[in-house]
């Protein structure tokens, strides 16, 4: 049995999901030889330390750690003072300066801890530096959950499609936009009406600009460009058009001619824009689904689809990244 001691930084929606999934999958992980022990949880209010393992029910009902924290250590101090092998970084994302996640990741990697994250910001802002730090310290940096949520994309390319040259990737990487466009096409709702509905259902934030103006998708495009295509790009290098100018009439016109309109991110072209997708295409998925078409030289085009967000779904991608670090390292070692 391999014991993996995990520190969790960030205790929002995804952080709660990670705590829950680690608890739920404890037995299954044991069966594949991994003893995943969560030894600390840190958020902006403090730290909850549990050297023998966090008992999920002790903290899951608390929205933040305020009231349950038993230490006022910040993340950096936690990494330096307790025995942990791996850091799960799930603080809120900032695509401009990457903080606070960027600092957490730099600290963790520098101290020789593996990092698994769903936080796009640091990878968009400073991917090269993080990857170099991981290599120098002989640890892994895993971020499947940052692109397409639970939909396997990065691991699919790095492991299953290894040997293929990836010619390009096109996809729907934002569930909020896809929901809005789907509802506008189906119900002939004006944009604002569809947005309000998405907000009421919790699919869109009160300030939806990050999603609907294509910023979120552009961040994912930058991560794919840096990680899969070995480019060195930032958010500003991506040409972005959002969905705010789309009208229900244009969707009807497109539908009559056999097309859906989807917000498509593309690498290595570095574009995010609404595009006409044939209704029969595997990319023409509806509701909050994400989808990605991977164009390869040997395998042709491979399309994956899945839920792009959600508490448990994102935690699932994080769990699979954790497991991948400790299983079949030889494949990853060649790529890092």
């Amino acid at each position, binding site marked *: 049995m391999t014991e993996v001691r995990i520190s969790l930084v960030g205790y929002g929606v995804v952080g709660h999901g990670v705590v829950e999934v680690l608890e739920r999958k404890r037995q299954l992980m044991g069966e594949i030889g991994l003893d995943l022990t969560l030894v600390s949880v840190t958020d902006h209010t403090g730290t909850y330390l549990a050297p023998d393992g966090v008992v999920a029910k002790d903290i899951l009902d608390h929205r933040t750690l305020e009231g349950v924290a038993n230490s006022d250590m910040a993340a950096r101090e936690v990494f330096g003072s307790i025995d942990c092998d791996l850091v799960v970084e799930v603080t809120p994302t900032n695509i401009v300066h990457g903080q606070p996640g960027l600092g957490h990741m730099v600290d963790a990697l520098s101290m020789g801890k593996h990092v698994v994250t769903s936080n796009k910001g640091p990878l968009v802002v400073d991917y090269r530096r993080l990857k170099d730090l991981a290599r120098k310290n002989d640890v892994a940096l895993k971020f499947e959950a940052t692109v397409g949520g639970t939909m396997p994309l990065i691991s699919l390319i790095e492991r299953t499609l290894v040997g293929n040259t990836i*010619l390009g990737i096109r996809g729907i990487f934002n569930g909020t936009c896809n929901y809005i466009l789907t509802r506008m096409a189906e119900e002939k709702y004006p944009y604002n009406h569809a947005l309000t509905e998405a907000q009421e259902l919790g699919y869109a934030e009160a300030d939806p600009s990050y999603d609907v103006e294509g910023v979120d998708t552009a961040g994912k495009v930058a991560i794919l460009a840096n990680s899969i295509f070995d480019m060195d790009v930032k958010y500003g290098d991506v040409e972005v058009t959002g969905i705010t*100018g789309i009208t229900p*009439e*244009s969707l009807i016109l*497109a539908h009559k001619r056999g097309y859906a309109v989807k917000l498509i991110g593309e690498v*290595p072209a570095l574009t995010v824009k*609404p*595009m*006409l997708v044939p209704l029969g295409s595997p990319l023409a998925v509806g509701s909050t689904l994400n989808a990605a078409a991977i164009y390869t030289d040997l395998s042709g085009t491979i399309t994956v689809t899945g839920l792009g967000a959600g508490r448990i779904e994102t935690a699932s991608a994080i769990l699979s990244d954790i497991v991948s670090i400790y299983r079949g390292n030889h494949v990853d070692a060649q790529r890092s």
Partner: protein
Amino acid sequence: MRLSMDLEMEDKPGQLLMALEPLREQKGNIISVLHHRDKKTPRGTIPVRVILEMDRSRLETVKGQLQANGIMVVRAGEERFLEEITVLLVGHVLDRDLGDTVHQIDSTGFAEVVDLSLSMPGIDEPSSAYLRIRATGKDEIQKAMSILRQVCVQKDLLVIEPIEADEP
């Protein structure tokens, strides 16, 4: 000379033969026949596109023979436009001189807008236009698209392009 003909025929046995026979008689060398049995026209006829090598001077004779055989000749002439793309424009499409937008494509000489549908929900509201553009080749399609993109930046129109046009 390479020519193309858009024909329409009734959905009954032997029609295709009736359409091809006059071409054989006039020594036309058929390059391709696209028989769209599943894409019937509103008239209930089946559209067929024939591309052939033939002396242009024989075209009128062929057209006469086809019509005599009950085949409708929708268009016949030099095959110029081999590639096609569909795009959607959203914004104040009509107010920003749609005629000029179309003219910018048509005046290239290598590309033409061949189909156009408009949707105008109300005065002052953004309208949308569906355009089908044909061009003499793949490169010309791309050139026409870059002209269209520039025009639409000037006119503040959103251009929605098809995903399959330019696969990586």
